[in-house]
C-alpha cells in the first residue's frame, strides 16, 4: 500500500485502545469472562467417565447365587442403585422414579442358569441420549461377565475328583483349547496421545477457541458499525487515512487484547487443570492465525452491518453453528459426512484440529499444515472482503 504511514496507523490503534479502556463494562467483561468461562467449562468437561447414574435395582429371585450377582453389580461405580421391593410393577417408568435405568432380575433366573437354560436380566434404559444408553448397557454387561467368571471358577473348584480324572483322559491339544476357552479373553489397552485419558486435555483447545471467537468476533464486529452509526466514519474518511490504515489500526488493539486473553487462559489451565503445553512456538503460530481469522471475520461483519445491533445479530448467527459444528467439544467424526464439509469452513474447526495435533499427537508440521493454510486463507479473505466492503461504503 503506497503512502501507508505507521504514525497514522498508531493514531487509529491508540484511539481504538482508548475506546476499549473507556468502556468500563466491556473491559470488566473482557477481564472476567475468559477465566470464569475457562474454570466453568474446564470443570464441566473434566470427567470423561459417567459415574453415579441413578438406577433402580429390582431382585425378584431370592437365591444365594443371585445374591452374589447383586453384590458384584452393586460395586459397579457407573450406577448409584436404589433398591426397591420386588413387588413393584412400574419399573419401566424411569421418569417417575427419577432414574436413568432400571435393572430387573426375573424370578427363577438363577434356577434357569443351573438348568443350562440361561435367561437374560432385564435392563430398561433411557434412550433419549443414545450415547448414555449404550454406555450403561456395556457397564451392566461387564458386571455380568465378572459374575460369570467367578461362578465358573467356583464351579471348577467344586468339581468331583472323578470328573477331573475323566478330563485327564482327553488328548492334550483338546485339553489346552478347553482351558483357553474357559479363560476370559482380554484386551490390553495401550492408550496413546492422551495417556491419562483426561477429557480436559482434549476439550481444552475448544474452550480457548470458543471464548476467543465469542469475544473477538463480537467486539470487532462493533467497531466499524459503531463509527457508521455515530457518523464518525465519514469524519474518518475525510481525513488523510487510507482504508488499509483504518483496518490495520482497528485490528491491532484487539489483537493485543486477545493475545493477553490467550496467555491468561493458558496460564489458568496450566495452573488449575495441569494442562501441559508442548511446542510453544507451533501453538503460538496456530493461536495467532486463528486470532487473525476471527478478527477478520468480525471486521467483515462490521463492514457489512449498518448498526451495532445488526453487527451483534450477524455475529450470533455466525457463531451459533460454529459452536455446534466445529468439533470443539466432540470429535467431528460423530457428524455425518455432508455436515463435516460445512464444519471445514469454520476457523474454530481448524484451530482445534491443529492445536490437538500439536499438543496431544505431537505431530510434525506436515500433519497440520493444511489447517494453518486454511486459517491464513481465512484471514486474508476476510480482510480483503472487509476492505472491499469499506470501499463500497466510501462510494
Amino acid at each position, binding site marked *: 500500500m503506497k*503512502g501507508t*504511514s505507521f*504514525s*497514522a496507523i*498508531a*493514531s*487509529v490503534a*491508540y*484511539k481504538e485502545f*482508548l*475506546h476499549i479502556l*473507556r*468502556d468500563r463494562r466491556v473491559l470488566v467483561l473482557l477481564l472476567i469472562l475468559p477465566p470464569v468461562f475457562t474454570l466453568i467449562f474446564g470443570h464441566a468437561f473434566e470427567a470423561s467417565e459417567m459415574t453415579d447414574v441413578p438406577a433402580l435395582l429390582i431382585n425378584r429371585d431370592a437365591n444365594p447365587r443371585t445374591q452374589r450377582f447383586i453384590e458384584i453389580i452393586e460395586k459397579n461405580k457407573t450406577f448409584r442403585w436404589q433398591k426397591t421391593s420386588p413387588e413393584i410393577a412400574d419399573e419401566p417408568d424411569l421418569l417417575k422414579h427419577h432414574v436413568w435405568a432400571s435393572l430387573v432380575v426375573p424370578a427363577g433366573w438363577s434356577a434357569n442358569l443351573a438348568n443350562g437354560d440361561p435367561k437374560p436380566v432385564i435392563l430398561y434404559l433411557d434412550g433419549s441420549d443414545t450415547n448414555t444408553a449404550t454406555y450403561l448397557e456395556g457397564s451392566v454387561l461387564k458386571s455380568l461377565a465378572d459374575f460369570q467368571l467367578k461362578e465358573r471358577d467356583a464351579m471348577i473348584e467344586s468339581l468331583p475328583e472323578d470328573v477331573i480324572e475323566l478330563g485327564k483322559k482327553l488328548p492334550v491339544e483338546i485339553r489346552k483349547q478347553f482351558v483357553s476357552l474357559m479363560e476370559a479373553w482380554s484386551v490390553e489397552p495401550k492408550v496413546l496421545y492422551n495417556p491419562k485419558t483426561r477429557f480436559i486435555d482434549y476439550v481444552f483447545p475448544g474452550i480457548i477457541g470458543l471464548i476467543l471467537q465469542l469475544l473477538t468476533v463480537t467486539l470487532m464486529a462493533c467497531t466499524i458499525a459503531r463509527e457508521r452509526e*455515530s*457518523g*464518525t466514519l*465519514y*469524519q*474518518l*474518511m*475525510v*481525513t*488523510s*487515512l*487510507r482504508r488499509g490504515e483504518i483496518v490495520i489500526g482497528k485490528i491491532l488493539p484487539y489483537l493485543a487484547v486477545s493475545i493477553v486473553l490467550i496467555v491468561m487462559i493458558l496460564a489458568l489451565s496450566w495452573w488449575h487443570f495441569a494442562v501441559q503445553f508442548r511446542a510453544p512456538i507451533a501453538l503460538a503460530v496456530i493461536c495467532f492465525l486463528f486470532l487473525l481469522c476471527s478478527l477478520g471475520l468480525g471486521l467483515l461483519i462490521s463492514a457489512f452491518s449498518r448498526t451495532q445491533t445488526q453487527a451483534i445479530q450477524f455475529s450470533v448467527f455466525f457463531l451459533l453453528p460454529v459452536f455446534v459444528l466445529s468439533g470443539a467439544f466432540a470429535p467431528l467424526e460423530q457428524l455425518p459426512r455432508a455436515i463435516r464439509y460445512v464444519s471445514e469452513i469454520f476457523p474454530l474447526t481448524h484451530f482445534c484440529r491443529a492445536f490437538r495435533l500439536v499438543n496431544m499427537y505431537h505431530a510434525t508440521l506436515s500433519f497440520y499444515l493444511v489447517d494453518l493454510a486454511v486459517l491464513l486463507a481465512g484471514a486474508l479473505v476476510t480482510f480483503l472482503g472487509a476492505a472491499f466492503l469499506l470501499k463500497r461504503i*466510501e*462510494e
Partner: protein
Amino acid sequence: MSEPVIALNSLSKSFGNVHAVRQVSLTIDPGTIFGFLGANGAGKTTTMRMLCGLTRPSSGSATITVLNVWKDRHRVRTKFGYVAQRFSLYPDLTVDENLRFFGGACRVPKSELTARIARLLGLTDLAPKRDTAAGSLSGGMRQLLALDCALIHDPPLLFLDEPTAGLDPVHRQQIWNLLYELSNAGKTIFVTTHYMDEAERCTEVGFLESGQLLAKESPRALKESFRVPLLEIDVDPVMPALVRLRSLPEVLGVSLRSGALRIYAANPEELIASWRKAWPFPEIELLADRLVEPDMEDVFTAYSQRYDALLKKSTS
C-alpha cells in the same frame, strides 16, 4: 482574478430516480465565505458530500484547487476540513484526545501538533475543557471542538454543514466570529445554513432548490435582483387577513414580519392603490401601508417559492 478554489461543472447526483443534485455549476474564489442556502432536501448536504469525496458524482465534475474531488479524493483531503451536520467526534475521548487523533489521522507532524492544539483551543476558548470527554460538552462547545478538529491540519478550505443548527445565539455569534477570523486569514469557507441572518453575513450566497442552483450572488446583489419593492401593511386582526390575502389571485404570497404583513406581488403599487380605493375585506381594518426593500428572507422566499414575477431575469 485568481484561480477559483472550488469549481463545479454540471455536477449531478441521482439516487435511483431521485435527482438530488442537478447540473450545478459554480466557482468560488479564495477567501470567500460562501453560504449555501436551500430548504431541507434541496441537495445541499449531497453537494457538500460530493465535494468532500464522500459520494461519487453521477455526472459532471468538481475540482478543489484544480484537483478532481472524486478521482484525486485522497489528495484533495489535505486541502479541506469538514464539519458534519451531526456531531461526529468520539464522545468517550477527551477534547485533547480527539484533537490528537484527528491530528495524527491528518498526518500533522508530531512536533507541530502540541503547539497547534494549544493555539486552536485558545482560539475557541476550549483550553479549560481539555481533559473533558467530548460527549459531556455542551452543544456549542461540541461544535467548536468539531471546528478545531477540522482545522487541525490547517487547511485552506473549510466545509461546514449547518454548523449553528440548534445552537444558542451566543455560540452562533462565537462561531461566526471565528469564521470571519478564518476568512481574514485567507481561508475559503463553504457553509450551509437555514438562518437568513447568517446568509447576510456571507460574502456570497447560492440558492439551491430541488437540486438546482437558482442564483449565486453576493447578498447585496441578490436583494437587488428584485424587480419591485415589497408592500408591507398593518392590519387588524392579523391572522384572518393573512389567510384571506393568500387566496387573492394577484397576491403570490404573504408572510408575517414583526406584526406586519409582507405581500409578494408583481405590481405592489397598483395593488395598494386599488386597496386604498376598495379594501376587499370589510371585517378587517387596513391600518397603514408602506413599500419596503427586500431582505434575505424575502430573497429566500422568492427563490424557493419560485416567485419569478418578482425577480429580474438576469439571475436565473
